[in-house]
């Protein structure tokens, strides 16, 4: 473990390097390294500008607006927020998941599978495949989807079309590409029409075939240098995820399970409505983002990772056949009870992408998705909690409302927050083992970004205006003087000012 690199002693004698922002992650992240005179890393931290003010953004609004309103929290995973909010407001109208109309549950799952499929496709093909196909220290011009399209045109095109297909699923289920009203309190706004179902069925066999190829690709890459891939940024940790009652992988609704680094189940079938009994969040002075931990294990040992690696590690099986075969192979490759390789996030992510494609196919052949049932209703409540396995991990939405239906309190734990400690530990591992003692270069620094990107962190502020997103890298000597600066402009070009 690398906690000793969280806070250095004698900071005044150290050089400071900042990567700001980390590129190819959602939103804004910053890495700082403190180096001694021999370039040995003494401190490494990932700082994140969190979604600030989203609770206030939500408070004061009527609860029925939430499924649409929260989509604006994040331009990258609006559907995840939409569904978590919908599950929470189901409870406000007295409807628990088991009382939701069957058709609504299946339509929501279809929507969710579309979201996870398109998001996983974006992450792998757009953001990570350049590193994986060309190497972490390849020329920066190579590390982009454009280079992938040039050198591996079939793979690049498949990535674009997989993402497009996921978005078409979202559009058909919710009626719009973005800002759709798909889920409402107690149900769904619409069903799929037969024409919409048939339209989506047209390409699903091809989508599954591409998903199978994608898993094959990531396996090949991972195994091409197994010791390296299994070691890079790797940290043993606890894992938290949702599972079905029988232990199957679950993305939409289930109970929470926690396993430790040895694969022992610490908690199982936890009711997510009691998450406050199990999880606390620590504030550290140097980061805007909190550090969640399992209360029973304490701050030091209770941190955990979420997302594809956690889900595929934690579940007992996957209920779609091809993805299950891939899960078995994935779990067997390390010979250990749990796969801790941070780069194995990519492998797990694509197994999930394949699971989503298979699940979409199954749901499209289920006549329930063509049926529209009236929303369920129950006894009014004043508190609602919705939890789903979002693309990047477990997502919590918790609301309290008053007698006028106005939200008085909101608490959201987003997936990236849960991975905060894991990302920091991975950064420290890479800094200590791959950078320490070397002269820093852009390609070496990319190793840090590779470790962070594996988590697919969503730091999104969903703003993107032309001219935003500059990057500045400063090298500061022991006396605090800036001795070198690199600036990355809005087009991604890097220059010395």
């Amino acid at each position, binding site marked *: 473990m690398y906690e000793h690199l969280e806070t250095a002693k004698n900071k005044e004698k150290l050089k400071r390097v900042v990567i700001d922002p980390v*590129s*190819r992650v*959602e939103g804004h992240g910053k890495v700082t390294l403190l180096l001694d005179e021999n370039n040995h890393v003494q401190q490494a931290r990932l700082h994140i500008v969190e*979604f*600030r*003010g*989203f609770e*206030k*953004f939500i408070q004061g609004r009527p609860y029925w607006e939430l499924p649409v*309103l929260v989509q*604006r*929290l994040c*331009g*990258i995973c*609006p559907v995840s927020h939409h569904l978590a909010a919908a599950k929470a407001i189901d409870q406000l109208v007295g409807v628990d998941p088991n009382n939701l109309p069957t058709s609504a549950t299946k339509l929501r799952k279809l929507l969710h599978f579309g979201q996870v499929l398109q998001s996983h496709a*974006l992450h792998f093909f*757009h953001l990570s495949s350049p590193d994986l196909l060309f190497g972490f220290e390849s020329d*920066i*011009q190579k*590390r*982009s*989807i*454009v280079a992938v*399209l*040039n050198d591996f*045109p079939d793979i*690049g*095109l498949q*990535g*674009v*079309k997989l*993402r*497009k297909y996921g*978005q078409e699923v979202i559009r058909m289920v919710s009626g719009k*590409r*973005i800002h759709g009203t798909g889920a409402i309190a107690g149900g769904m706004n619409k069903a799929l029409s037969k024409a919409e179902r048939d339209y989506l069925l047209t390409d699903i066999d091809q989508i599954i075939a591409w998903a199978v190829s994608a898993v094959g690709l990531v396996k090949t890459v991972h195994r091409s240098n197994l010791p390296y891939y299994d070691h890079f940024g790797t940290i043993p940790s606890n894992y938290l995820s949702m599972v079905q009652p029988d232990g199957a992988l679950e993305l939409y609704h289930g109970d929470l399970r926690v396993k430790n680094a040895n694969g022992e189940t610490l908690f199982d079938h936890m009711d997510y409505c009691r998450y406050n009994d199990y999880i606390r969040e620590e504030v550290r002075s140097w980061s805007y983002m909190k550090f969640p931990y399992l209360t029973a294990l304490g701050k030091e040992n209770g941190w955990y990772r979420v997302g594809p690696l956690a889900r595929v590690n934690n579940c007992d099986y996957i209920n779609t056949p091809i993805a299950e075969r891939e899960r078995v192979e994935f779990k067997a490759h390390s010979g250990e009870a749990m796969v801790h390789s941070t780069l194995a996030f990519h492998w797990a992510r694509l197994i999930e992408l394949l699971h989503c494609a298979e699940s979409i196919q199954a749901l499209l052949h289920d006549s329930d998705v063509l049926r529209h049932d009236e929303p369920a209703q129950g006894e009014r409540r004043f508190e609602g909690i919705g939890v789903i396995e979002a693309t990047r991990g477990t997502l919590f939405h918790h609301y309290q409302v008053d007698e006028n239906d106005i939200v008085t309190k909101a608490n959201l734990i987003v997936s990236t927050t849960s991975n905060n400690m894991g990302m920091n530990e991975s950064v420290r591992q890479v800094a200590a083992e791959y950078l320490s003692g070397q002269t820093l270069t852009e390609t070496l620094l990319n190793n840090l970004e590779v470790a962070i990107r594996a988590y697919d962190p969503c730091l*999104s*502020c*969903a*703003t*993107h*205006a*032309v*001219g*935003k*997103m500059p990057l500045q890298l400063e090298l500061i000597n022991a006396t605090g003087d800036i001795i070198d600066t690199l600036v990355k402009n*809005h*087009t*991604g*070009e890097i220059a010395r000012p």
Partner: protein
Amino acid sequence: MMTKPILVFGYGNASRGDDALGVLALEYIQTHFTLDAVELLTDFQLHIEHALDLEQREMVLFIDASVKSDCAFAFTQLTPQRDLSHTTHAMSPSAVLDIYQRLQNKAPPPCFLLAIGAECFGLGESLSDNAKRNFANATKLIDQLFNTLTLECWQMQCSQSF
């Protein structure tokens, strides 16, 4: 469904202050013009698959908030450009054109960018005063563009200074 020959892609987050400018411009166009030949499209930001939305178009207009310019707005014709903006999720329109070119092995349709001056992007904020003024000015250009939906007219507007 037939693909409409002209695509207008206004993008941004309507709940993040001036980032709403692209979305507001779409609303303006929708309420002021007949759109038989025009498809309006919105999203939070540009992604690689938006290159597929350029297929079978005769002209494309991107509308976005911009912090780059001191002008109220800028109207330019785009060329495909292999910049590195696709290393973030803030793809530039020119990079989308470049992706189109690589996917389709042909030049993209004529594409234009209307970039409206912006400065504040806080969650839950409304438009800044400057953005309101810039938007009002930009609507005059929008009126001209949509009253004469021809390539020649749009290219002529590119030479104007605002």
